């Protein structure tokens, strides 16, 4: 069935720390600058590679407009100082954009059409709001009842999942608490040190007292989202945001975030040519559609599909990066598929670490491959639900 002619390997993977949006550490940092940073950083990990040999740069972005518009991939390639022979394309599958970028890169290589591709993702939710700067709905959405769910906010879909899969408020809050605890503990143990490329925020600020421009430079190397002070009581106090009698709160939903990630995908030939060693191997990727009003269950369909396609069994997976869009949908997925809780998001998930929409996929590939290697494990997965009703899942092997 497969037309694969060669394997696709990931030889480098890194990410920026993730800031909180819209009032966090990166609120004044442009997403194209974050992207330039991760491109330059990931190339530093490929010592000796000729940048002229890069076939393409594929960048995932969920709201590709304004500061992350006009094909941010190509803009960043040029700003990063890459040769102008290196092309760039921006792709969008909402929350799966970053993972989709890796999959496209890998498949280009597996088909033999390319040897070196950088796959990345970037998103500033501080600068570009959810749904973009200008929201505009097709009137046909409301012409009948069958397509109204296109207009649903993600929160409403999470409420519907919580109701249908009977995920209680307590369970959601408990899951959220665990996410924070795991993330805090991971940071303390230095689990993210390898994957994060610290970002230095540079800016000129007006000093109104001295009437001078005041240059501020601050280095950031740690994710901003995880809270050591989260408690069951604090989470229980939060009010539902999306439904009057609902269970989904700001505390048990993913955080809005700013961040970027990048990985270098390569053929074996290219690795040999530049004398590089792989972090891991790309095994396969699947995506599938589900009803938009319960978009959060996407992974319930996507995970079995990719396992069947790759021939890997669920219990062979040592590590699953399941994007925590909401605790409600995460628990629905975990319970429905019987995933091993200990293997899902061992370093915390999006509820604590944040979810810069289009960047998340690339960021979590960096987390997964570094994590698998550090803990001497083999197979891992990155999976997520996707707005308007989709699921995506990619399988990797650490080397």
């Amino acid at each position, binding site marked *: 069935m497969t037309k694969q002619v060669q394997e696709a390997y990931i030889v480098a993977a890194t990410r920026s720390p993730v800031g909180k949006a819209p009032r966090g550490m990166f609120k004044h940092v442009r997403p194209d600058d974050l992207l330039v940073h991760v491109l330059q950083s990931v190339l530093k990990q490929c010592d000796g590679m000729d940048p002229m040999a890069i076939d393409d740069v594929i960048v995932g972005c969920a709201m590709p407009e304004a500061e992350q518009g006009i094909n941010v991939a190509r803009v960043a390639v040029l700003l990063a100082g890459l040769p102008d022979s290196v092309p760039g394309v921006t792709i969008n599958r909402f929350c799966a954009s970053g993972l989709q970028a890796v999959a496209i890169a890998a498949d280009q290589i597996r088909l033999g059409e390319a040897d070196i591709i950088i796959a990345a993702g970037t998103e500033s939710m501080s600068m570009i709001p959810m749904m973009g700067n*200008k*929201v*505009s*709905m*097709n*009137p046909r*959405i*409301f012409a009948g009842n069958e397509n*109204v769910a296109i*207009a*649903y*906010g993600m*929160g*409403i879909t999470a*409420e519907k999942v919580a109701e249908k899969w009977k995920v209680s408020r307590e369970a959601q809050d408990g899951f959220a608490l665990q996410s924070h605890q795991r993330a805090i503990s991971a940071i303390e143990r230095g689990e993210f040190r390898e994957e994060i490329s610290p970002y230095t925020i540079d800016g000129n600020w007006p000093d109104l007292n001295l009437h001078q421009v005041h240059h501020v430079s601050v280095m950031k190397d740690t994710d901003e989202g995880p809270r050591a002070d989260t408690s069951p009581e604090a989470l229980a106090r939060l009010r539902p945001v*999306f*439904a*009057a*009698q*609902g269970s989904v709160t700001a505390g048990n939903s993913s955080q809005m975030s700013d961040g970027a990630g990048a990985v270098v995908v390569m053929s074996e030939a290219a690795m040999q040519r530049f004398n590089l060693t792989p972090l891991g191997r790309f095994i396969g990727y699947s995506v599938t559609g589900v009803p938009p009003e319960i978009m959060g269950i996407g992974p319930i369909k996507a995970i079995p599909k990719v396992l069947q396609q790759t021939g890997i069994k669920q219990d062979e997976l040592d590590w699953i990066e399941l994007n925590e869009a909401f605790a409600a949908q995460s628990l629905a997925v975990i319970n429905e598929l019987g995933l091993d809780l200990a293997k899902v998001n061992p370093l915390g998930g999006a509820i604590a670490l944040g979810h810069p929409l289009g960047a998340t996929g690339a960021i979590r590939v960096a987390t997964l491959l570094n994590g698998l290697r550090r803990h001497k494990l083999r197979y891992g997965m990155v999976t997520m639900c996707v707005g308007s009703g989709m699921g995506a899942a990619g399988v990797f092997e650490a080397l």
Partner: protein
Amino acid sequence: MTTHPIRVRKAAVLGAGVMGAQIAAHLINANIETLLFELPADEKDTNANVIRAIEKLKKQEPAPLSIVSRAIYIEPANYDQHLERLGDCDLIIEAIAERLDLKSQLYERIAPHLHDQAILASNTSGLSISELAAAVPESLRARFCGVHFFNPPRYMHLVELIASEYSDATMLNTLETFLVTTLGKGVIRAKDTPNFIANRIGIFSMLATMHHARQFGLGFELVDKLTGSLIGRPKSATFRTADLVGLDILMHVIQTMQDNLADDPWHGFYTAPDWLSKLIKKGSLGQKTGKGVYQKQGKEIHVLDPDRETYRLAEQEVDGEVEVLLKQKDTVARFAALRKHSHPQAQFVWAIHRDLFHYCAVQLEFIANNARDLDLAVRWGFGWQQGPFEIWQSAGWNAVLDWINEDIAAGKAMAAVAMPAWVQTIGQQRPIQGVHAPEGSFSPATGEIQPRSSLPVYRRQLFPDRLIDEQPIYGETILETEELRLWHTGDEIAIVSFKTKKHTIDNAVLRGMEEAITTAENHFRALIIWQTEPPFSLGANLQKATERPKTEMPPSALDDFIRKIKKSAQATILKAAHSLDMADVLMAGKLAEVETMIAHFQQTSQHLRYCMVPTVAAVDGLALGGGCEFIMHCDRAVATLESYIGLVEAGVGLLPAGGGCKEFALRASQQAVESDPFMHLQHYFRTVAMAEMAKSAEQARALSYLSPSDVIVMNRFELLHVAKMQALALAEAGYRPPLRPREIVVAGATGIATFKSNLVNLLEGKFISEHDYLIGSKIAHVICGGDVVAGSCVDEEWLLGLERAAFIELLATEKTQARIAHTLKTGKPLRN
């Protein structure tokens, strides 16, 4: 060149306590740069004390700031680090703890930093201004005086201005002018006596009430029912007012009288009752501690039983017969009956008035310049509808005097001191017996009638707050109907004032408006809409659309609407006002007649807009629904800060159809130069769909009911003057109405769908009902120009047609009808 008195470019308030912080907030409301000082904090941020006070201002109700976002303009400062910044300040208001020693020390400390024209004023409520002046360094003494604000300072009209013997007369006039025009206050010059005028009388009245309550064995809650709106005082009456003010503050004010008025005939009563001292000892200080005279237990209100020192359910009611008596409109008859009636409640009400009148008559010459000052001080400072002398005079001066004298002789009065002789003398005056006459009010010091102040600032008040029997003459009539009057004051500017209840707008008002506009176009240079008293207008009265007999809405319910406005965020209650008395129409199903009226309304709005002379709306108080739409169609609005403007139709299941939606669609199109009108419509949609009512003129501007060129006036008695100046300026500029817009770009079907996507999420989350969704969708439909291609061009008639159709569609729904009926019945919104 005339030299102007000094300008207050910048002010400072010393002391960020309850009063200081709120005074600073009001200075900011008036666009005055203000520093707020407090003791340095023993923390990393030395301004932490002030910053906390500023944060508190943002949450306080009723709101001290006209709009919360203005809090950033109050500059925090502390005495250790920032005293040199006082050098820029032209006015320094001191509002620190009421201790002579502390105040003296502070004056010493700040004096070297003040510039040589700066005014220093103390907001003391109890200390002697002369004693304080002695503590002020000599170079500053002439520029020192007392300014006594009332809590809450934004809303209470009164400021007492107290001179010391050293105070410079020009400085006092300058300050009075500033307080009146810039801060919008009612200034009363008070003599330097303990507690000045309003608190002296107001607190005595409370003490007399407590005394007689005990004598007649009446429960506190019953006393509040008897001494509230039934006798023309605020609903909080006596004991709830005490709880609101704080029992410790009350105690402090009583103590001031106890300490400083040893020779006073009522001195024996200047002492707190036992129960009050005990409450304070227990830390039950009233509302701020959650417990005082009253205590809320679950949903029940409990009241103190002073004998048992426990709380009991508040359940005592006013006797039916006494209530009828108190509602008697004829004051002469009312007082005669009260005095005669044997019921203890009636006797109580008579007694508290008797002793109050007695007290005022004896004290007047010591505390105030004339009777007008005393009456206005009590009205403006305590919210009474009439001052003590006004009540006395309207009850029949001589008859009441005889009764008081009889009671004094019989030993019933609280003090045995004889009435001063002038009380008898003025009773012989012709034609009016009493202290207030058309040319002025009685002054015991001169023995003569004193006219109102001749300070130039008062020339701006064409119709100042009037006293009993003062019948203002509102210019020359141009035309007059049952419902409105068009008049002028001889200056080529026509003024139209409504005569309907709450200045609602019915078909007859609309006809009158059409005639007024045409008359103004033909014979005058401008047209002003101004009401002789607030509200500006509660909107359209659709009941009149069918010319059926009016079913009277219980007046108390409507009064409640207005009372609640400042306190409650539950603005939705008011939203029913627009559709007052509509129930009958609906039941009769006379939608066609309503549609005709709506069309008529729109036509009048348009006539205002395209009138050949400038039109100015002079707004004070509530301006809802149709009232708001009239404002939006005038060339300019001049609004007092306390204007509460809103398109609140959605609250009762309708939408603005007098041109309000049209106007927002038009403005969005005009703002959208080379962009999408939808971006601008979002703000307007939210305002209309949420039925937002602005709680100040400043907020009305933020909600776009007022435009940036509209003018905000701080003093409502200056409103008409400023409106005239604005009208004249527009006329003098060679006024032409705007050209009728040719191409109004609308957001169309895409805009509607995008608004619906907001609504559908609220619906799915059960934040709104199906009917709310329908109302929101209709509003979206109208302001987006209907189901047309986004970017289509329409004209005003198109939008007005959409307004009418959507209004009638909503009105025809059972749920909207149920909402209206429910709101009329209960005064509360219905969610269905």
